[in-house]
């Protein structure tokens, strides 16, 4: 099953309410995906700096150790903000590769959830409303956000198996459905230098889009290509630094409904997810067509 919610704000005045609205949407999709939940929030960023979202099963210990290590390196100019099992490490973008190498060498139990100027990803095993509460989603602000509630089918219920998946800077994807050619496609992508953390089918889809965008395609074009190359059932909602996209497979058996007003574009697996949005009574509400890419960019 699984539930997807997404909100792309067109009206910047609503940005402080982003987390509150997404949290409300996510809470309506709990029974579609009670195993785990996650969300990506595109919040404020500083030019020249990159945010690295970290996760650890032994967060208190790891993040304290990391904080101590960062305090010793005054030149790095890094800032660490912890949220439950996750933390956001902000570093100058030109130091990103160096920092990632250090993290991988000295902090093997810390996992990288996302990197980018704006994106932060939080995901955990647990009931979706509890997960949202742990990370205090309702107080987050930003321009767009995507959330997911997971009922696992293709791989284990783990933190890393939860959505969203991010395989490129400021990129993320959530998925409702199951892919049938993910193993063969993963092998092809590995041959082309892409790296994988899980056996999950959705990670292959995220990686595929990143791979296509590395070839110079924009998100909309990459999504068009995915219709030819991915086999299975899928509703994808994807985010980039400035964009928000939706695509459904040709069979379109996974439910989807969208709403648009002058203030926002919203996606929900069901209308329940949209029912609490401001101005929904006057919104344009429709079911996205199969094999059709929908894409908004600011």
């Amino acid at each position: 099953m699984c539930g997807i919610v997404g909100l792309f704000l067109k009206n910047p005045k609503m940005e402080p309410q982003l987390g509150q609205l997404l949290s409300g949407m996510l809470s309506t999709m709990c029974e579609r995906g009670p195993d785990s939940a996650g969300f990506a929030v595109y919040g404020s960023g500083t030019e020249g700096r990159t945010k690295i979202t970290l996760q650890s099963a032994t967060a208190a210990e790891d993040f304290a150790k990391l904080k101590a290590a960062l305090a010793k390196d005054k030149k790095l100019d890094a800032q660490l903000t912890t949220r439950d099992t996750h933390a956001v490490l902000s570093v100058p973008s030109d130091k990103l590769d160096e920092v990632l190498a250090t993290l991988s060498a000295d902090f093997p139990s810390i996992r990288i959830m996302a990197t980018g100027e704006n994106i932060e990803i939080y995901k955990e095993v647990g009931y979706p409303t509890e997960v949202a509460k742990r990370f205090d989603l309702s107080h987050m602000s930003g321009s767009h956000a995507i959330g997911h509630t997971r009922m696992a089918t293709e791989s284990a219920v783990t933190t890393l198996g939860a959505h969203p998946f991010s395989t490129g800077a400021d990129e993320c994807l959530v998925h409702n459905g199951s892919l049938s050619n993910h193993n063969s496609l993963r092998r092809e992508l590995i041959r082309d230098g892409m790296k994988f953390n899980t056996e999950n089918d959705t990670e292959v889809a995220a990686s595929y889009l990143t791979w296509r965008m590395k070839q110079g395609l924009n998100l909309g074009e990459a999504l068009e290509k995915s219709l030819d190359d991915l086999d299975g059932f899928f509703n994808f909602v994807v985010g980039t630094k400035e964009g928000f996209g939706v695509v459904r497979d040709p069979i379109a058996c996974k439910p989807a409904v969208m709403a648009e007003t002058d203030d926002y574009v919203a996606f929900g697996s069901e209308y329940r997810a949209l029912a609490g949005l401001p101005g929904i009574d006057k919104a344009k509400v429709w079911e996205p067509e199969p094999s059709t890419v929908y894409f908004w960019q600011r």
Partner: protein
Amino acid sequence: MQQLIGDLMRTFDLAQSPLRELNEELHRQTDGSNQPQWEIVNPRGGHAIAVGLDAPVKVDIRGSVGYYCAGMNKKASVTVHGSAGPGVAENMMSGRVVIKGDASQYAGATGRGGLLVIEGNASSRCGISMKGIDIVVKGNIGHMSAFMAQSGHLVVLGDAGDALGDSIYEAQLFVRGKVKSLGADCIEKEMRPEHQEALTKLLADAGIKDAKASEFRRYGSARKLYNFNIDNADAY
């Protein structure tokens, strides 16, 4: 909380009382019910609203509903003043269900009788495996509609998506707009006077005045898939 409005209309607020209470109350209604009119407010996309009714009551739902609204309906007249999620009026037996907005996938699936009117568009698999229901859609329908449809009528004032009537049995399909493609064993058929007459009656029953039967084309089964053909054995 329920309030009495006048003598006949009863309003049920789903923001105040649980769905199960509503459906239980509706199931208690009988042919001679003295509570023939119901209004349901704040549906907010909820599932299985007004499912399994078996009495000639009139139900108005003010807002959009989720999965399986008015499923298995018998005798009742249910109007959704909004859009409907997947499986609206699934396996309907009799009565009337009207959706003022759009309907999601498999509207009227496996329906055995009654009339389902969708005033907006219906998405994929509308009338899949229909077995006697009449469905009238003012807008367009999506792909794979009337798949394995056995009997009844599907009337579409707009366009039909891919693979209309795939593996169809004896249901009759009438489309006024374009058909993107026909499914296996579905063909266009001659519109004879008895079809014009049946369609005219269906349009009138659905309250449609701006469409004439003569504007529609009829589609149905070529009857080539009814029995296994030994010449096709190599295909399996």
